[in-house]
């Protein structure tokens, strides 16, 4: 039975095994490869997407549980060529090295800013504790989220 969901604002009908993870469906069926595989057990956050606006580990989320739900990936944060304030803030802060964790960090940060438009550093650290940056750019990521809060990230979709 096909499963309907809304991905980055577009309705998608998927004929796929409901046991598959959202991550693999996004990456392998929908060509949305921004969310990454890092651990497969919800420990690294590289696969983070928003489901109904909440940061969610797509590697642990079964497709079958998502009928009618709205999914936003890193590809959906940029609107008509305009970067999400968090994306811009990550660039401005140089908050990356290899960049493999970046999409998950930004999406997790977007979820935080929806809940709290102006989080202090300890809250940012706590919210992102489940996301690993093996290159160790944590301080820069915290600075980027703080800066994005200042830029008014809350007004943007995501």
């Amino acid at each position: 039975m096909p499963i309907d969901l809304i991905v980055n604002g577009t309705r998608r009908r998927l004929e796929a095994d409901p046991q598959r993870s959202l991550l693999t469906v996004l990456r392998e069926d929908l060509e949305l490869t921004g969310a990454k595989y890092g651990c497969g057990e919800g420990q690294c956050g590289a696969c983070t997407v928003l489901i109904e606006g909440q940061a969610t580990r797509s590697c642990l989320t079964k497709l079958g549980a998502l009928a009618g739900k709205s999914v936003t990936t890193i590809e959906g944060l940029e609107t008509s060529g305009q970067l999400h304030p968090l994306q811009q803030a990550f660039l401005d802060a140089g908050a990356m090295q290899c960049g493999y964790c970046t999409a998950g960090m930004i999406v997790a940060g977007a979820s935080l800013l929806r809940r709290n438009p102006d989080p202090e550093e300890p809250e940012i650290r706590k919210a992102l504790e489940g996301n690993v940056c093996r290159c160790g750019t944590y301080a820069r990521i915290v600075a980027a989220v703080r800066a994005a809060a200042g830029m008014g990230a809350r007004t943007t979709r995501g």
Partner: protein
Amino acid sequence: MADRDHAPDLIEAERYELFAGPAYRFEVHRRDFFKVLGAGLVVAFALPPALAQESGGARRGGEALPGDVSAWLHIGEDGHVAVYTGKAEVGQNIRTSLSQVVAEELRVPIGSITLVMADTAVTPFDMGTFGSRTTPIMAAQLRKVAAAARELLKDLAAQRWSVDRGALVARAAAVAHPPSGRSAGYGELSKGQTLVKAIGDDVPTTPADRWTVAGQSVPKVDGRDVVTGRHQYTSDMNRPGMVYGRVLRAPSVGAALVSVDTRAAAALPGVIAVRDGDFVGVAAPNSHAAAEAIGAVHAEWKPTPQPSGAELFEYLRKNPTDPQGESARSGYTAGSVESGRAAAATRLDATYTVAYIAHVPLEPRAAVAEWQDGALTVWTGTQRPFGVRTELAEAFRVPEEKVRVVVPDTGSGYGGKHTGEAAIEAARLAKAAGRPVKVVWTREEEFTWAYFRPAGVIDVKSGVGADGKLTAWEFHNYNSGASGIRTPYDVPHQKIEFHATRYPLRQGSYRGLAATANHFARESHMDELAHALGQDPLEFRLKNLSDARLRAVLQAAAEKFGWGKTKAAPERGFGLACGVEKGGYVATCAEIAVARPSGEVRVARAVTAFECGAIVNPDHLRNQVEGSVVMGLGGALFEAVQFDAGEVVNPKLSLYRVPRFSDAPVLETVLLDRKDLPSAGAGETPIVALAPAVAGALFSATGTRRRSLPLAPKGISA
């Protein structure tokens, strides 16, 4: 300058990086260049001696360039600059720093440069991206290539306008002749040309004190592709008709495949199964189906006895592999340790150990392989594209010309991606499937079947005279490696040896290689000596150190930290350490905090001073230093691969702890910019002083000396 890391006083190259490449002579024909690139100019860097006769001017005709070309750039008729290097981008931001040096010498905007990296079909041979060699060697070569290209363009303009060359100015991707007001873009000057020029080491380049593009904090050139998720890592790639592969793994190291039944797997829809010798794998329409298929393979294995984790250090010490040969040759001796010890007023013997640790690159090993008419193309995240090409050619018994390896900018490596396992697996499955196959290792595979930073045992014996000066230094490293094994301190009597041993887990390169282990042992021992003598650890080091560059970073870190100015609060401690490695000088001061009652130890603050000659990109350098400190604190405090009987028992991120946001200390970085000195690499060395600084801080907080890395995986009891 180009071979500064082959300085004669270096004991030996890092053993775990000694991958002997083929004695390769890269031959490029003029016609090939322009067939692929279109007309324009090519300037190539060729190593001597072939160079001697070749550097005179632009070459004509169809002859080959001299051998050992290591980089070149092409300026097309549209003015686009393409730079070709075999180096790979793995997060160290060399795509940016190399673009900077080219932009500088060529006088073009960074945005008009494309760096073509790590593609064996189009970039020159390169041994690999390791050893912090990109900045001291490749950047210097590209700088010369770009400077020569700029001068060649001036030649063309002088000819065209019949004007005095000396009156020409190159700027903003154009050559201008101010007296006549004429100006022509590089593309216009190169139009209709097919010029090839080979240059050597003798091209003058802009000194660091006159840099305008290098030396600046240019942002990551492809940063926008990263933050939008648009950048395609190997694991993101898709090819028409591509299917997904998985490989059957042994239950333990050394287990032999006795029997295998792939019928149930092969019966699944769209699945093919392959058995070829010990290789068993499947390919399926998606990764979920591939995981189910590999799970449906029934196999029987026969384990072979393996050393237990508990006896690791005993095992290393008792199993030398080359007691009289290489180890002895790789040693360093000065004076007589026996007489130095005899003359000492204070003697100290101690043993230090380091655990196996994993690189945990967030992008696991990945490859996409595609065969076409007997030729193989593999995209894979590796630090050694040409080495992987050799592996593939050997595995499939095809000539290297039939194999192309392309490395998309990769989700990190840290020395952990020198090999081509996933590439070979994907290629084998693609051969069987008759279509492209992607293999992405699971995290568990990465934790189990990649290779680790070697574990090691280090014995140190020392002596200090009544005047507080070192008299003797004896240092034996078992298995962990020889990088950074020499002491920078002034010691008249020394004996330093690396001992190769048998080892229980697959091991290889790491960030800073064995320098992390050797610095941990050496600097911990220096700290112990200072305390034994009742001296301040900083003063004791300075008293025994004449290397001015090392003294400078040590003093800079101490000053920024406020060393000696304040006393640590209860349950807190201060420590410091320093070292020189791969042309970089580093000192770290750390403050640690012990939480009560949990006993958990964390690094509260780390101040690192680093000097690597002239700084190419201050912000990216700072980023590398910060990242090294954060990565280093994992190995210092809690990272360890646990294993028993050939089986890794913590092969998941939920079982193997890596530093997270809550572990990140307050980071302060002092960069010493030595514009008078050539630039050295920076991705590795800043990691080496963190662990011993933390060990010293832990001792000052608790009064107990810990000599094993990780220092406090389970915290410390009160």
